[in-house]
């Protein structure tokens, strides 16, 4: 928490609450992702379940950078090429 800029001191209670909130958050994230994911069929929580939750749920929007959806390398390279083409056209 202290690695955040501008934060000088943290109250003991605030520290406890943040810890507890993080615990609740982990539970919430795990459960939501599992419920909405395909993992239910296979009884497994996978990375894509989490990535989907990050994208679809408003509450988890801030996680989209941390939990990006995985795409195949060739699809990524293709989209890069297309971007370059657009730049050339401009």
């Amino acid at each position, binding site marked *: 928490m202290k690695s955040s800029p501008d934060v000088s*001191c943290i109250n*003991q209670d*605030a520290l406890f*609450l943040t810890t507890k*909130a993080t615990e609740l958050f982990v539970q919430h994230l795990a459960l939501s992702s599992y419920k909405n994911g395909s993992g239910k069929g296979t009884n497994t*929580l*996978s990375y894509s379940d989490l990535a989907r939750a990050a994208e679809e749920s408003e509450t988890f929007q*801030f996680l989209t950078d941390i*939990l990006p959806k995985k795409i195949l390398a060739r699809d990524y390279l293709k989209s890069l090429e297309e971007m370059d083409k657009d730049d050339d056209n401009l």
Partner: protein
Amino acid sequence: MAERPEDLNLPNAVITRIIKEALPDGVNVSKEARRAISQAASVFVLYATSCANNFAMKAKRKTLNAGDVMSAMEEMEFERFLQPLREALEAYKKGQKGKKEASEQKRKDKEKKNGTDENDKSRDEEEDEHMDDEQEGENEGEEEDVEN
């Protein structure tokens, strides 16, 4: 420190335990998913801290307090956490109070056993500690009054 957000990770064992508690029995969690949740939790801490800090700065305080964290939760649209957090905080404070009383009780018992000289020394040291705590408490109280 200059650590990137990706470098700050919480202990895996704890994260795994919390995930297991949340999910129904028998559900597996892939290693990748676990690592991802751990990173998400780290980001959550950073985001919540920064948000809480904004509230503290608005109130011209340098110390984050419990109220700031609660406001941050609302801001981040995690109102569902507010009630459980309040209850947890109550229980925690009671626990703290109990601990303090227990340590004071221990001190009193010690005094009864020890001689007077040793008494005064250790008592002075402990009194200083207590005074610091009380002063901190008083300062926070004053700051809160100023806000209101």
